[in-house]
């Protein structure tokens, strides 16, 4: 698997909410070899502070050699990224990690919460491209409020996948969690579940799937220094009590292979 370090030109900056942004980056080498669920490490500043790169899921790729990242401002690095201007360049490095293993023989149920939606557009894109018809598949998008989901809906619609939404404040779709939708409905039999979102949501999804015997792949986070297996900093206990390294063995795991705190 090839990885590249590229100076990506920012071709598009979109602001969706007070804190949520989307950048389009021209980086043909990374874009050309990326798989859904993989991530990139981006240098947010030019100086020595912030020092380390920041990991971001690949939100989508396009044939013209661009990728997108969709992110929320939570600290210094993301704040700098939010102020990046069109035509500036960012050092990007990827694609990294193991992405989703698409189970094209079964119906897909895809669940995203909050910024966990980020990698799912790429997953849906690829899922529907490979399957050709994905109208039986389902994506559930959850967030705190309407404005976090709405701007993304137009990007999901063209694929023909069924879309359901849930918001904590009821401003869009189901009033409650994304997982609540799954619990309340009949899932396509024999489906594979793919998830990304906050840790408690993934923990819940994991036990939901385990109790129903559904294969479940989730993308998890960890603090990272290198993103490529060199520092051993991104450890996380697996279900056997060993440490797995999220940047190398993840970020996508079979939910049953990880330890979950309920």
């Amino acid at each position, binding site marked *: *698997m*090839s*990885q*590249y*370090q590229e100076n990506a030109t920012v071709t598009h900056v979109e602001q969706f909410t007070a804190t949520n942004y989307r950048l389009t980056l021209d980086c043909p080498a990374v874009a050309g070899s990326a798989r859904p669920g993989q991530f990139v490490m981006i*240098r947010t500043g030019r100086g*020595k*502070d*912030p*020092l*380390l*790169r920041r990991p971001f899921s690949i939100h989508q790729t396009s044939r013209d050699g661009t990728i997108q990242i969709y992110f929320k401002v939570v600290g210094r690095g993301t704040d700098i990224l939010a102020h990046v201007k069109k035509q500036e360049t960012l*050092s990007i*490095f990827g694609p990294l990690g193991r992405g989703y293993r698409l189970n094209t023989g079964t119906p897909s149920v895809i669940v995203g919460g909050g910024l966990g939606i980020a990698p799912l557009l790429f997953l849906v894109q690829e899922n529907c491209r490979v399957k050709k018809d994905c109208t039986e598949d389902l994506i559930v998008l959850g967030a705190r409020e309407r404005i976090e989901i709405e701007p993304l809906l137009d990007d999901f619609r063209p694929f023909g996948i069924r879309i359901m939404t849930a918001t904590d404040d009821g401003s869009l779709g189901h009033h409650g969690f994304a997982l609540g939708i799954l619990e309340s409905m009949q899932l396509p039999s024999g489906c594979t579940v793919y998830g990304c979102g906050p840790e408690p949501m993934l923990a819940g999804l994991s036990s939901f799937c385990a109790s129903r015997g559904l294969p479940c792949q989730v993308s998890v986070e*960890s*603090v*990272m*220094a*290198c*993103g*490529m*297996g*060199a*520092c*051993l*900093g*991104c*450890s*996380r*206990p697996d279900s056997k009590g*060993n*440490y797995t390294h999220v940047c190398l063995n993840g970020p996508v795991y079979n939910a049953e292979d990880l330890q979950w705190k309920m």
Partner: protein
Amino acid sequence: MENVSLQEGQVPDLRVNIGSLELANPVMTASGTFGYAREFENLMNLHRLGAVIVKGISLHPRAGNPPQRIMETACGMLNAIGLQNVGVDRFITEKMNYLAGLNIPVIVNILGDSLAEYEEITKRLAGVPGVAGIEVNISCPNVKKGGVAFGTDPAMAAAVTAAVKNKADVPVMVKLSPNVTDITLIARAVEQAGADSISLINTLIGMGIDLKTRRPVLANVIGGLSGPAIKPVALRMVFEVARVVSIPVIGIGGIESAEDALEFMLAGATAVQIGTANFVNPRASEDVVDGISAYAANEKLTSIRSIIGGLRLDSLKDHATSSHNPVAK
């Protein structure tokens, strides 16, 4: 110092000698920041490295510390990986093959909790094809001496050095901890105990606190500080040590660029190691080789060796030897 000037069309000689070990150039990768090298094969040309130093190896496999293991700090990072590694036997069977195929010197960084462990690892590494040297991490706790790090006591540091030297069939580089009052005492002790070279610095001990949770950020509470933030301390210690030992000194600490590396060489380092910078720029070590090569050509140096210890102190003599020198305020 070799002061012959480079002739038109000549290429500068970047080779340096670490005792009996000849490196094609002075750039190595620092232990724990370059995995087992293979991780970087797509991102740079490994053959360009002066040497590769692999993640620290212990006698038995170690799981390492629970997360959170790393944390960013101002111009640096803290790590408390906890010496996670596959153990010397699996290292030899699983990792050495690839490494030996690289055709660059492979230096194995080793660690232990007792003299016996250091000795045993060295014994198992003896005769393993491809192992060109051993780097001894003496920042580890001596379990027999109440967990005080070997590297903070001259006698213990010397004992580890002697133990490893005794079993090693390759040159032994001893890696010093900077968390000491007088680094020159440790340096002289390990030199006398037979070290073939000295590398420094390992990380400074630091800590981070999360105000929101009111907890230490690292599960291990304390961790090792690395990166550009520590460069001034590293440079000072390399300078101090290079003046008192006659074996080669290898500079480590916050090196990101050829300029950084060359400063360490002026301070007395024969070679350098690139650590944290590998995370920021996976091609950092190769970039440093390129930069040193360009510098040497630019300055018309026949050999890069001519700058080792070349720091000019002449005009500073009065102050540098004044009674105020050891203290900075």
